């Protein structure tokens, strides 16, 4: 009898464990027009930063990964955007959610990516604070610290329409740039 009970317990265990895995706490992403809570980003080479450090600038937080095909594809245009943006008015914070920091460093070297990038190994910031739902995912934050745009998926970042979106965000006016997000 004891053996039979043990057999039942062993058979039930995986089922119970799997069913328990579904009870995850969902984080709600920041909403357009609402203040984004300060977040800290760990630099790839020790250059940590935070949203508060860029207060007064328009900030874009961009979550990506080397294993993400659309992220890799759009990276050159994102680098061109970073070169075009005036660093006294704008800040671009790249955040990789890779689990191997060396892969990110190699990727940056190989493709000549120079804009500031950070690492979020356990997605604590991507999921825990921004509620990222897919990659790439970007959050454009205005000078007042409120969310202006929430962009998911691949984009062509250095188009005139996208530049207008950034400039409009700095001016605090509703954009008519026609850039998609």
């Amino acid at each position, binding site marked *: 009898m004891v053996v039979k009970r043990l*057999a039942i317990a062993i058979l039930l265990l995986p*089922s119970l464990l799997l069913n328990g895995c579904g009870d995850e706490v969902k984080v709600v992403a920041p909403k357009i027009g609402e203040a984004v809570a300060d977040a800290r980003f760990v630099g790839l080479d020790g250059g940590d930063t935070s949203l508060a450090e860029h207060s007064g600038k328009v900030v874009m937080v961009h979550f990506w990964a080397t294993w993400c095909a*659309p992220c890799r594809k759009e990276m050159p245009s994102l680098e061109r955007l970073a070169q075009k943006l005036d660093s006294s008015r704008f800040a671009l914070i790249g955040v990789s959610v890779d689990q191997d920091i060396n892969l990110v460093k190699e990727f940056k070297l190989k493709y000549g990516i120079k804009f500031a990038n950070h690492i979020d190994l356990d*997605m604590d910031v991507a999921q825990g604070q921004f509620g990222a*739902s*897919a*990659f790439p995912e970007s959050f454009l934050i205005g000078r007042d610290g409120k969310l202006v745009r929430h962009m998911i998926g691949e984009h062509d970042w250095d188009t005139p329409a996208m530049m207008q979106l950034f400039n409009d965000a700095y001016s605090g006016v509703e954009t008519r740039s026609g850039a998609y997000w």
Partner: protein
Amino acid sequence: MRTLLAALLWLTLVNVEAGDPFNGHRIYGEHCLQCHGDDGSGLLVGIPDFTRGEGLLKSDLELVEQLKRGVGTMPAYQGLLSENELADVITYTRTLQ
């Protein structure tokens, strides 16, 4: 007793293997509907029409890998949706044909 054990074993296996179309429907509404449309016919140019089976003539394993890494303009869901959740949404998407 043997029947009971067999039933429990079957239930355990079903939990691991089969996608849940109802949970898949919920996930589809949250992550896919905006581009793929309510009926799966695709709202933008270049998006596969699921009602005709486009993009679905692959194994579930291949589709899970695609969803994890992203393809074309579709973003990547690795680390954000579990493999079971991806299997659920694939199961639901197959019902749109």
